[in-house]
């Protein structure tokens, strides 16, 4: 997975998104399957406004790769228990701004 060019583009895109977002990977790409239909990313935002901006900011990445971008607020992440139930892998720490 780490050798895949998609992974490098994901890390770069996340690093330049400049929002206080917690990023996670989940699904077959991040569990190291040889074959995968999409690349599952979870972004947990602290505000509703951030969720709206994020898909636009990530459009260049999402137009190059089969990224399934799931964007949640922190309250939705708690409500769904998604991070635990889907065994999400933290990708990068929240930016300090």
């Amino acid at each position, binding site marked *: 997975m780490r050798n895949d060019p998609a992974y490098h583009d994901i890390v770069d895109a996340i690093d330049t998104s400049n929002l206080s977002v917690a990023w996670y990977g989940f699904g077959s790409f991040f569990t190291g399957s040889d074959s995968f239909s999409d690349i599952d990313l979870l972004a947990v935002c602290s505000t509703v406004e951030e969720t709206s901006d994020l898909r636009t900011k990530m459009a260049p990445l999402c*137009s190059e790769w089969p990224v399934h971008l799931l*964007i949640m607020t922190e*309250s*939705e992440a708690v*409500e769904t228990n998604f991070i635990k139930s889907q065994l999400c892998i933290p990708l990068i720490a929240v930016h300090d701004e």
Partner: protein
Amino acid sequence: MPRPPQDTTAWVANNIAQTTDVTGTTVTSPFTFRVERKDRPPFEVLVLSYPQVTDAVLNPLLAAAPPVSFVVNVPKDSVWTQSGIAAAHHCQCAFGGIAELMSAIYNKLDDVSAFVKKENAFVERGLLQHDCVSSFDQEFDRAYMVHRLGMKSLRVVLLNEYELTAEHVRAARTRYGPFDIVLMTNPNGTPTKDAKEAAKGLQIAILPWRQFLGRLGTP
């Protein structure tokens, strides 16, 4: 800078080569590759990478390519317009994303061009069999205008998310314009509280399949 098309094609071909029942893939042009399968005929795939697939995008590529059975558009965050779908049908190609291409391979079809996404086939069959539906138009791969007998037409967007979030609802509104109903096509899907609130604010109903069928019969 966008990736060169030949890099995207090679990446998809390499991914598909790892799929069960595929014995190998060969890139045949910057936009196409060939899939060899166990006990099934090989087939050709056209690879695109566009946020919106229209006939204007698709026709020149189809004209320049060898005969293909499947058109795959790589971005998950993308839409197939009515004209793009018609262009694929005109050339007798199946279409979709990488997930649909893999489904077509798993289905072991001799003729991959006959592949139809199960989600759409299920919804369209339900609409055709509904007493209150006179006709429907597929405006995008995930958006339908449903015409009803003696009642207002309803614009419906199919979302297959397991966890349907507020952002999904808002993104669908941005992508497809105003619509009346989110049809949840994932039988295990659940909207979050925020998703319900967002939908309420946009005057959109989020409905699972059975409730959707009931709504079609309600003025």
